């Protein structure tokens, strides 16, 4: 009896220590930076904050970030669903290669991904001369930023729905086909409703990344103020100019966008946790 009580006391002490360590860690690594961002942004009062985020360069950066996300995320949503559908519902040669290719953007450094686009479409790149001859700007312009963002966020949607679709198997699709549905009807009425929450989850993850991407975008953007600076790049420019209040103001806005995404993501997990997990409850 007494040894048991001693043991359970020791267990409580151990649990408490672990919880404290975890909380302290989260505070230092996650919460403190967020607090610093907001604190620094508010250093010179709300008028300075307001000026910083309504500055014409800042507004251009916000607009560009939203524009790039609005193009890159839907493109990757469509691609991710197509790729996942091919991989999980069909057998074909080279399937393992496709799976490996989808993973590449996760394993390659973003700076390298950016450089690849410069080598392809830059002034001295493979298609540089042709593009110049036809007056098409990709590098140091919006198309390059969109391309780099698409590349970096490519795996998010596919990675989120492939395990779920694998676990669900093909029986429901085969049932739909045996009932006379066409391939498209099967996809629209059977496959898509089964993955909708996981798909939305993947879209939110890729949205957060698309808005926050720095490395790849930095290489292809050329940092032209008011033209090719996204929000993360604009923050860096302001910071390098010793304009700390403005830098943190824009950073706080970016963090705010990320937090909104996070809230939606948590809501999804809370409401539809079961359907996000790769579990099979026919």
């Amino acid at each position: 009896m007494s040894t048991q009580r001693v043991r359970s006391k020791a267990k409580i002490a151990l649990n408490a220590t672990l919880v404290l360590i975890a909380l302290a860690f989260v505070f230092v690594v996650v919460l403190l930076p967020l607090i610093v961002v907001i604190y620094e942004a508010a250093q010179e009062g709300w008028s300075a904050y307001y000026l910083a985020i309504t500055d014409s360069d800042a507004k251009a950066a916000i607009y560009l970030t939203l524009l790039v996300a609005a193009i890159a995320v839907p493109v990757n949503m469509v691609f991710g669903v197509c790729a996942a559908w091919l991989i999980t519902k069909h057998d074909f040669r080279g399937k393992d290669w496709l799976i490996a290719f989808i993973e590449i953007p996760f394993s390659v450094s973003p700076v390298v991904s950016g450089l690849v686009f410069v080598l392809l479409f830059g002034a001295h790149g493979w298609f540089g001369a042709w593009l110049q001859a036809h007056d098409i700007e990709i590098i140091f312009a919006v198309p390059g930023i969109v391309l780099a963002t698409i590349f970096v966020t490519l795996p998010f949607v596919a990675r989120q729905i492939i395990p779920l679709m694998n676990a669900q198997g093909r029986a429901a699709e085969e049932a739909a086909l045996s009932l006379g549905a066409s391939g498209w009807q099967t996809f629209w009425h059977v496959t898509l409703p089964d993955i909708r929450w996981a798909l939305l989850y993947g879209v939110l993850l890729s949205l957060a990344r698309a808005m926050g991407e720095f490395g790849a975008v930095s290489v292809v953007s050329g940092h032209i103020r008011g033209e090719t600076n996204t929000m993360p790049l604009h923050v860096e420019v302001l910071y390098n100019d010793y304009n700390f209040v403005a830098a943190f103001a824009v950073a706080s806005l970016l963090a705010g966008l990320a937090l909104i995404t996070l809230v939606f993501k948590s809501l999804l997990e809370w409401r539809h946790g079961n359907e996000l997990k790769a579990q099979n409850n026919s």
Partner: protein
Amino acid sequence: MSIEVREISKAFQAHAALDAVSLKIKDRDFVALLGPSGSGKTTLLRVIAGLEYADAGRVYFSDIDVSNKPVQDRGIGFVFQNYALFRHMTVAKNIAFGLAMLPRKLRPSAKTIELRVTELLALVQLADLGTRYPNQLSGGQRQRVALARALAREPKILLLDEPFGALDAKVRRELRLALRAIHERLGITTIFVTHDQEEAFALADQVAILHNGKIEQFDTPGQIQQAPNSEFVRGFLA
């Protein structure tokens, strides 16, 4: 509708699942494909359905070659081992699916579809469960829904893959009787796959015993029990 399978072969990677199988099934017959796991019985059923394409051989429905027709155009009903219900649809929507997917010109009115669903629910004895979702049903009820769904477009051929495999003994017996009654009433040709010989012999008019991708014996239950034609069949029945 009669079914004829002629010299069907099908291999998965190097493994031969079906080895030049031939089989003739008369209109309105009730046939069981019986055999141990890996004998090719499910593959044969899926080839007949059009869910799987054979490497060689032909499939005929009423003497018409359907070998190159996709599953949608074969006019069959298929019942899957694990029900394969659409989990985000109510029971009624599940059953109505085949009708709702018809091209607009052929599709019955919403009212007609509703009546048909009510009729099918009564046929499988689930009259009041139309508004439920599949995860609110027992295994036996789910399989009844799957059966009703497969019958919605009035197929001339009904194919069932281990339809009672996941159910307990009492529910199996009830469902067997229900299936046999529906077969008699609708006058359709029915083929079901099972590894349970008691089930095959109790239910079917004719039983095909498969082994290593070949049909060992195809006859009435009585004939097979009286005169097993090979060492394998004798051993399998023992």
